[in-house]
């Protein structure tokens, strides 16, 4: 059953899958690269603080019911170690466009050195954000 032809085809399937994964990782890398140059968009942040860039809109229900409370909880826990920048995508569509935001909520976690650590498309709960901050 597992003859050479099957193994060759399995190898091709694996190669294509890895290629797709590579494209995905490259997309994330370009997002990171692009974001590196976008930090100038933000207010000056306190030194040694993580920055959470949070894109929302006034009509976004999960932003109000889940994402904002999660960020507030995180702020209480981390204090000045977390700098939050909230951006209304309807007021600043230029920023949403430059940051590649396609849906809200979207959060970008940037470490104190200005390196993008994580992008969360959709709701990211406090526990998840905390894990991303501590986990690297």
């Amino acid at each position: 059953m597992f003859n050479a032809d099957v193994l060759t085809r399995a190898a091709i399937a694996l190669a294509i899958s890895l290629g797709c994964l590579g494209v995905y990782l490259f997309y994330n890398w370009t997002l990171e690269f692009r974001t590196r140059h976008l930090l100038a968009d933000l207010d000056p942040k306190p030194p040694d603080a993580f920055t959470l860039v949070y894109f929302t809109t006034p009509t976004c229900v999960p932003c109000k019911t889940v994402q904002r409370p999660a960020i507030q909880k995180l702020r209480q826990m981390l204090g000045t170690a977390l700098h939050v920048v909230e951006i209304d995508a309807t007021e600043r569509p230029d920023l949403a466009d430059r940051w590649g935001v396609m849906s809200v909520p979207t959060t970008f976690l940037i470490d104190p050195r200005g390196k993008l650590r994580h992008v969360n498309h959709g709701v990211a709960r406090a526990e998840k954000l905390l894990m991303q901050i501590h986990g690297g």
Partner: protein
Amino acid sequence: MTTQTQNLQKVDHNALKANQLTIITINLLAFIFNFPILAAIVAVVMGLGSLLKVPGFLPLYRYFYKPLGLLKPDVLDDNPEPHRFAQFLGFIFMTGGSVALFLGASALGWGLVWLVIVLAALNAFGGFCVGCAVYYWLVRLNVPGFAKIPPAGFFPGMKPKARV
């Protein structure tokens, strides 16, 4: 001129995901073991799903994925029409691929099958439905029969995450 509307309905996105995962799995098996008949079966199921306006592999979701706890309902406010259109597009590609394979045009046939695999994977793992994006693009072009606009605040084709 078509009237564009936003009348969102409850759509279980994990029923769609189950459909996509099954399509990916069967198509991969078809390719690896060189069984074009499996690709043809996927085409037929997607065609039936399009006809009945449900995800083709919905019974698998109801009687396999859900009872085993592999997937739980993920009901979001969304338009079902673009997802049906995406499945119909998949059906067209799969039918073309299957016919090509049975006629001996392996490269074209497997190329179309792989196109469906990649698009289904993009939807299942990346949350982006290319067929839905095409649907919304046709709406913008005022093509008759295409009337639904994307949920507010979401890029056309992106899964409306965590909307409650």
